[in-house]
């Protein structure tokens, strides 16, 4: 019924399904802020977060600073530029895409997927409305914004063809407003300069001893200032193709530069967390503007030029006031250099508060709950299955909490966790085997209501169904299904109705389809999967084994576990050594039933139990009484340890058998 291309546009690469557990509205940055832009006409501050979200702030409104969130990236947003007089925003991300946004309304207009690695830097030529993007794939792409906003990418492509074959991932990029030069800084440690109009290479500037992470070009493109991880800044004359001056101001790498229009003063910041203002004509005349709490990533000036907004690898954005230029010359004497300079500011003028990023996690043994700890030492518990936060516990002892919640149960892994955005990103297993390895009973998982019969469910299966619940469903049903947890409706088994019969995930949960270990192919919110465009894109990207589960409702295969069942030495019985195979979630109780019925009950028939306890299990479901009977009559041991009847075979193998060889169980009748 469905035509689904296995991996659509992504070629042969495997596609992995991921989702993010988060609040519907994330009002604060959850991790560092990589870039800032300010739009004077609207008094809006745009911030590019490592949480993958671009937030729009109204700094004037101190009560409700947050305006919009622009959420479409799935990884760090590394750089943003505002163009077209503040109407459009271009963003570059480590998800390898460049996105074009409507800056006023905050929606994504188009996604450019030409880069093959993290896109690290953007440059903007205001006069020509041209944007360049560059990244770790060593490529620089030039974009005509008018074309971009008309939804077709320009084919103007410049590649930094490395003459020597050096690997040179680009970390910084700058253009002058008229778009006559473009300069790139890379791990090659040299600056490369092109003419973006002709895409011809102009020069290569050598001098830095390390990666070049920040660049600025003056208006006419005759001078360039560079900041490097070697801790220096260099002022270059592009006309003379040489370094005019080297500034040793910072103790560590220089990561951010802000030069005034006349190219006379520079603000610089970096890993040493200090922001200096330096007179380029006389480097001795400089002042320490402020000392941030984390390495400085970006600075932009306020509209009146009296202050700067500073973004760091912490989530808060602070505004600092700048010393006036005359004071700069007064306050900085060369003699002061020896002493530790005192910052002209000790407190920021304003601050946009940031949130806490999750830094640590621990997956509990049930492979469903996760205990996390964030940058503010708050501990929380998440339910991966339902994609929700279960409990906020505040600053309690993280290790203690893990210990407290750990159960003696073994469930195979079916997902991975990623904290790069400061939020929990869950990557489901990359294929059927990995993703569908965890079978549990509904009772144990607390999914079955009351006295309903115990059933086996597969975690990966349930999550996929819940995430893509709305795919091909009539839109009308959306409202109803949202938030309605455990009530299976009558139509839940039909193909038109998605989801699973136990729960739904929050509708705002972002679902991400990406190449394994690499580029994002598609991101959507769980509740939007019913849309027409979304449906088409899903058809293209969702791997077929996921489709089978979600659409066809096929059950994943059970995981079998081979084991030997032998009479215990103390029982004095002798039988042949039988190799049995059972589902890994089979409980010891069922094995006991099998022993009672087939081995002990039927006497010498034990040699022919080929079917194994799987059959025993089915029979047992009808006869509940037999259950307790078997437990009382037969004991099972592994490595001479008595086994709990509730324990399942994989747990026995993991915690008691502790070996990769076939599990051996011993039984003995209870006297």
């Amino acid at each position: 019924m469905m035509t689904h291309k296995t991996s659509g546009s992504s070629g042969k690469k495997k596609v992995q399904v991921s989702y993010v557990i988060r609040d519907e509205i994330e009002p604060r940055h959850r991790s560092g802020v990589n870039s800032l832009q300010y739009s004077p006409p609207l008094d809006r501050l745009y911030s590019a977060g490592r949480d993958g979200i671009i937030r729009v702030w109204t700094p004037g409104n101190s009560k409700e600073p947050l305006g919009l969130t622009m959420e479409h990236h799935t990884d760090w947003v590394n750089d943003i530029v505002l163009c077209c007089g503040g109407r459009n925003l271009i963003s570059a991300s480590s998800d390898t895409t460049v996105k074009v946004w409507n800056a006023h309304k905050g929606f994504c207009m188009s996604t450019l997927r030409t880069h093959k690695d993290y896109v690290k830097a953007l440059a903007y030529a205001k006069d020509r409305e041209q944007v360049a993007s560059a990244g770790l794939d060593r490529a620089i792409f030039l974009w005509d914004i008018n074309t971009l906003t008309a939804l077709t990418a320009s084919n103007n492509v410049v590649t930094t063809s490395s003459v020597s074959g050096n690997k040179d991932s680009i970390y910084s990029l700058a253009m002058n407003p008229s778009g006559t030069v473009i300069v790139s800084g890379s791990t090659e440690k040299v600056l490369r300069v092109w003419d973006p109009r002709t895409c011809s290479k102009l020069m290569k500037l050598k001098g830095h001893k390390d990666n070049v992470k920040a660049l600025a070009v003056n208006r006419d493109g005759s001078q360039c200032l560079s900041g490097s991880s070697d801790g220096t800044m260099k002022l270059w004359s592009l006309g003379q193709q040489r370094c005019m001056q080297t500034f040793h101001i910072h103790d560590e790498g220089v990561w951010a530069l802000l030069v005034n229009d006349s190219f006379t003063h520079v603000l610089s910041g970096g890993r040493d967390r200090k922001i200096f203002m330096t007179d380029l004509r006389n480097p001795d005349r400089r002042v320490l503007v402020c000392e941030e709490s984390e390495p400085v990533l970006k600075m932009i000036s306020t509209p009146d030029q009296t202050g700067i907004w500073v973004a760091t690898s912490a989530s808060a954005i602070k505004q600092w006031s700048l010393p006036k230029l005359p004071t700069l010359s007064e306050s900085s004497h060369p003699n002061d250099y020896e002493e530790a300079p005192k910052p002209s500011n000790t407190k920021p003028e304003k601050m946009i508060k940031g949130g806490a990023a999750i830094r640590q996690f621990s997956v509990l043994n049930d492979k469903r709950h996760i205990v996390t700890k964030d940058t503010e030492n708050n501990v929380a518990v998440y339910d991966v299955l339902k994609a929700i936060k279960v409990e906020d516990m505040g600053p309690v002892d993280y290790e203690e909490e893990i210990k407290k919640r750990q159960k003696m149960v073994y469930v195979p892994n079916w997902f991975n966790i990623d904290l790069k955005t400061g939020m929990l990103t869950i990557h489901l297993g990359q294929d059927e085997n990995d993703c569908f390895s965890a079978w549990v009973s509904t009772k144990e998982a607390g999914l079955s209501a009351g006295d309903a019969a115990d059933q086996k469910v597969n975690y990966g299966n349930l999550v996929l169904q819940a995430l893509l619940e709305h795919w091909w469903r009539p839109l009308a049903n959306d409202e109803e299904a949202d938030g309605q947890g455990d009530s299976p409706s009558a139509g839940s088994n039909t193909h038109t109705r998605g989801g699973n019969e136990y729960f739904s995930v929050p509708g705002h949960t972002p679902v991400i389809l990406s190449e394994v270990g690499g580029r994002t192919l598609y991101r959507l919110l769980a509740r939007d999967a019913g849309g027409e465009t979304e449906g088409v894109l899903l058809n293209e990207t969702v791997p077929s084994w996921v489709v089978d589960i979600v659409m066809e409702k096929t059950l994943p295969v059970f995981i079998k576990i081979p084991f030997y069942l032998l009479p215990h030495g103390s029982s004095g019985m002798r039988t042949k050594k039988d190799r049995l195979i059972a589902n890994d979630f089979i409980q010891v109780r069922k094995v006991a039933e099998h022993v009672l019925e087939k081995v002990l009950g039927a006497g010498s028939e034990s040699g022919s139990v080929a079917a194994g306890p799987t059959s025993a299990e089915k029979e047992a479901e009808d006869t509940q009484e037999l259950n307790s009977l078997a437990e009382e009559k037969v004991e099972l041991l592994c490595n001479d340890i008595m086994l709990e009847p509730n324990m399942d075979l994989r747990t026995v193998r993991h915690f008691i058998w502790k070996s990769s060889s076939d599990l051996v169980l011993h039984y003995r009748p209870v006297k």
Partner: protein
Amino acid sequence: MTVIATGTSSSETNGPPPRKKICLSLSGKGRTKPPVTVAEADSTSEMSVTVNRADPNKRRVKRNFTASDGRLRREALTGPLEPGMMLNGFVSDSVNSIAASDDSPGSDVPPVATICNLGNTCFLNSILYTLRFAPHFLHKLHHLVNDLADAAARNNTSKVKSSSLGRSIGLSNKHYWNMEQMRTSNENCTKKRVQTVTEKLHEVYESLHSAELKESTEPFQPEIFLHALREVNPIFEGNQQHDAHELLGCLLNYMRETCQDLSKQLESHQNSELCNGTCSSDDGKKETKGSLLAHVGLSSSTSSISSGKWNVRKSWKRKKPSNESIFKPNRTVKNGSQSSVISNGTLTAQQANSEDPTSSIESATNEPRILVNGEVHEAGEGDSSSKENGSCSLRPLQETDEGDHAEDKTRLNFIEEDFEGVSVLCTRCLECECVTERKETFYEIGVPIASDQDPEKREDCEQISELYRSSIVTEELLLNVNKYWCEHCLRYNEARRSVKYESLPPLLILHLKRFSSTFGSMVCMSKVNDYMPTPLILDCFCDECLEAISKDEDVKHRYQLYGVIMHLGATIASGHYVAYVRAADPISEYRSCDKDKRKTASLVATNATKGSNQPDGEKARGLLRFFSKTKSNNSDTVSSNHLGNPHYRNTCRSLDCCGVRMNKAYQPADSKAHAVNGCGNEEEVEDEGPEPSWLECDDETVRVLTRQQLEDILAPKQSKNSSLTPYLLFYSRIP
């Protein structure tokens, strides 16, 4: 048995067969010099000494040789030699002697003893030759083997040994070892196989030494060593050609393990002894060592002696700083005082004799040695300024009490000390620029062949050093799919990874990566024949030196080439290895040997106290005298010979056990005093002396080369096909 090491020293302890012991004890006797005050000898006296010594030496060697010969035969008959090895291993003597004689000046005796090829064993021979000329290697190996024997004597309960066996032998060898354990029934059956390799290596050098003494032209057949090696590592089974580099790595590892085990043993002993030792001190004035020795009579012979030795070991370490000031008086005194320790040893041996039949055998075999020592000591005492004893002797000894375990352990492991360097793997995330460091130890550095080098650069020494530096100290970027997971950023980022060297060992081994493996199989190794210059002097590239270079200063240390192993042939599995070694005068290495000194130092104390105050001590001495007179037959002549040599005493006795003894005929004409035969003059050695010559060691053929000849060999060849290429480079650090 410990007394052996404590009292005199030397090689004898390593050889289990009794016959060998006899002969070795003789050599030991010869070595021990009467403690005459050191007179700076002029060259004439030096010459005369050489002449003097020639006679006894020869005699001794003959004896020695027959003994070892006998041992060989015995091994061949009873030992677990494999038939395959016999077939391939033996090269008939006639062939060998023919091969040995070459165009050397003046005689058909090779400059040094040669080792014969047992069939594709040039990989082994090249390593044996090279290690033999590695600075300080023979000397330290000698003491290691000595200490091993001491330890073994102490732990002669097999229980202790088997427990340590499990530790030292790798998993892969486990079953092999068990087989071996069952098979071996001779006296060294319980020895660790790894340790055996070390011991057999030492025996190889002993045999070479004795071959040199008697100016034998017969190449030595290292099959016993090869066998020991195969026992440990079956990869060397069969008659295939092997990678010399691999062998070297194995050997160094085995020796390091042996050192480690030894220090562990000593440590455990020390621990168990400490309580015993302190309480049993019967004289308040004495420091621990003395008391421990006195304690001999009370506790079991083995343990108490060992503890005494242990303390002694500390003493030589401690002493080091103050060495220079008290050097001479100490030495004289020490020799004089030797008797008391020995007397203890004899005493215990006697006791053991009466008590325990097994240990009586043990002690019986020991006796000659003890006696020799005693005898020597007595001779020494007669001459020495024994009056000084009481006053100055105790000074260094008192320092011994604050012995320091950690230091001891590292000092014990000379392989780690000499061959081990520390590399630092630095990874810096390009995003947050946080650095993580991982330190690793290494024995050798692989150097990729720089194929795109500028031919002009080959001329300049500095540029060659630069070439090596840039090939060795490298930096790479982790990018694309190979990104680095940064713990700080919690994500994959690009990173810069660099390999630096925090410290380089005194003996640096460079391994030119000539063999690029395709699919990892030995057979598919292809060889890179590109020329890579081999500098005779190489600038150091440790962190400290690189810093100096970046500041445009001179490097802090340099490395001097002392050996090259060249590979001839197209693949790793075929071809031929030839070793080129620098025949430097090793005598300075044996001078002021700590191990020797501390032995005598301990004796000072015991002598001072026991000899004078204690009737027990006197008794023991009496015993000793008695034994020495009865048992040591020709020791008198030997020692008297040495009496005439005032310098001899300065050098460690091990020189006469396994040291290199270059044939005089090959001594460079202008360096008459440059004799490598153990009687160098102090003054002579101190000034640099003439440029030492080089030896080309090609199995049975050893040829003397001048430096120029060597440089010609190392120079770039016209045709790229000429496949005699340097493969392993051996450097020693020079200040």
